[in-house]
């Protein structure tokens, strides 16, 4: 994969939040068409399809049928909520190889209106489920508890992540939760699976999102400034938390290192960061493993609202899964927000003249890690 050879040229969400009258596939289709409009492309320009959702058995095939696209290249690799960040790498490779020219990456889910619980298929984790864990929340709780015991991380530091997300969401008109929120509110919310409170956990919403990619050469002639893909990498070590070798270290160490190497950048070069915040602990672990701070320092790093509006490192500027939206899988929305920041389309929450963005998707229970680094729009 060649640095900067492909670009993101269109991004869009469907209706978000509570959307009772749209199916998962319809929300995916809505977002796809809106992202093509954003790029100034038509549905018949699409010849590469990448989709994933727990609600469809054959996601990219259903999307092709729905839109009337018969792609030259297709993919529905299930990397959990990280899939879409990983699809950037797959799409870049397919485009560079000449296997397709315009790739559409899409997601849709009606998790909120469909009953609140994410469909996870028939798979049962035989050495975990009989003990009454809450999947996936307890897996993340075990990581948080271990991080606390090993490094002294506190519930207040976890809450800092939720409060920072809310302060970003207050600047995002599309965010679902925009009311005032303080550290004490997070700590006073109901305990779910200790040490995670309700407000340490992401929202449950409906919604879809889509991203359009093509070669950077073709991108120059399209409607919006092209956002080049500078680096991308994927890694996974375990599927279930009981196989995670060290609960305080994730495969983001691998995906981050490879993505930075491809981009020729280091953490200090990144202007804005989007991390899959299904739970507050995710952000702390990812900031450590991606190299924004050293191992064990994630708690103190996020303290004092360092990742909030006005802080030293802007993280999850949409409000993230904690306050903006979380329809089961968040990865696509991390890409959308990064592109908007790079195009300086983020309105009140714009963090300045952004030249670099890091997007980090997490799938499963800190299982799949996909890191994508995007460059300045041109």
């Amino acid at each position, binding site marked *: 994969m060649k640095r900067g050879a492909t670009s993101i040229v269109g991004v869009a969400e469907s209706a978000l939040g509570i959307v009772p009258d749209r199916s998962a596939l319809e929300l995916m289709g809505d977002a796809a068409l809106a992202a093509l409009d954003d790029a100034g492309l038509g549905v018949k320009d699409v010849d590469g399809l990448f989709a994933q959702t727990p609600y469809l058995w054959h996601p990219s095939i259903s999307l092709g049928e729905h839109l009337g696209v018969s792609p030259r290249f297709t993919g529905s690799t299930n990397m959990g909520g990280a899939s879409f960040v990983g699809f950037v790498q797959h799409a870049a490779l397919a485009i560079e190889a000449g296997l397709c020219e315009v790739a559409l990456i899409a997601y849709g889910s009606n998790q909120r209106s469909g009953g609140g*619980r994410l469909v996870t298929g028939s798979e*049962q984790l*035989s*050495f*975990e*489920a*009989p*003990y*009454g*864990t*809450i999947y996936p929340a*307890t897996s993340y*709780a*075990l*990581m948080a*508890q*271990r991080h606390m*015991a*090993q490094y002294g991380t506190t519930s207040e530091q976890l809450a800092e992540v939720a409060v920072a997300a809310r302060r970003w969401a207050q600047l995002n008109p599309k965010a679902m939760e925009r009311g005032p929120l303080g550290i004490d509110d997070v700590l006073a919310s*109901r*305990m*779910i*699976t*200790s*040490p*995670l409170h309700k407000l340490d956990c992401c929202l449950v919403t409906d919604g879809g999102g889509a991203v359009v990619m093509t070669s950077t050469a073709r991108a120059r002639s399209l409607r919006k400034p092209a956002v080049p893909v500078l680096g991308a990498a994927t890694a996974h070590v375990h599927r279930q*938390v*009981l*196989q995670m070798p060290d*609960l305080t270290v994730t495969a983001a160490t691998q995906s981050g290192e490879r993505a930075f190497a491809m981009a020729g950048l280091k953490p200090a070069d990144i202007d804005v960061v989007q991390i899959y915040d299904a739970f507050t602990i995710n952000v702390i672990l990812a900031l450590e493993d991606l190299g924004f701070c050293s191992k064990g320092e994630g708690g103190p790093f996020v303290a004092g609202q360092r990742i909030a509006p006005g802080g030293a490192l802007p993280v999850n500027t949409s409000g993230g899964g904690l306050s903006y939206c979380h329809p089961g899988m968040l990865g696509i929305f991390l890409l959308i927000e990064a592109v908007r920041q790079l195009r300086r389309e983020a309105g009140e929450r714009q963090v300045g003249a952004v030249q670099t963005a890091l997007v980090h998707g997490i799938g499963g229970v800190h299982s799949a890690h996909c890191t994508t680094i995007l460059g300045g729009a041109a």
Partner: protein
Amino acid sequence: MKPAAPPLPDTRGSARPYWAATLRDELQLPFCDACRGAIFYPRDFCPSCGGRAVTWRRCSGRGTVYSYSVIHTHPDPAFKQRLPYTVALVTLEEGARLMTEIVDCPPESVRVGMAVAVKFRRVSEDAALPVFAPAGART
């Protein structure tokens, strides 16, 4: 509707000797003939070194709490009636790490690093769940 019974382990395949041993109040695991490492979850090969031969052996049943979480809510009625309870990852003396429940110990007293010992809770004709109590606790 969800059944009131909790999910049961799948006792078939490579894990069959593991669950069969639990019916005798024994914790058994396969060990790699090449690297000697304990293999969990049970497989008939070694994911650590790639070895293809394993030997089943009885474990001591002693370990330490690697991490834990107290469950305060659960969508399944079978678990809801037992709230709150403590699930944990326990690292065995032999090196393997299991998901389990900590029993005979108030949730607020569980600590990372706590020494624990195995007990068994029969859940079906085919399996007893290994659970762990503070080491030295009355059994």
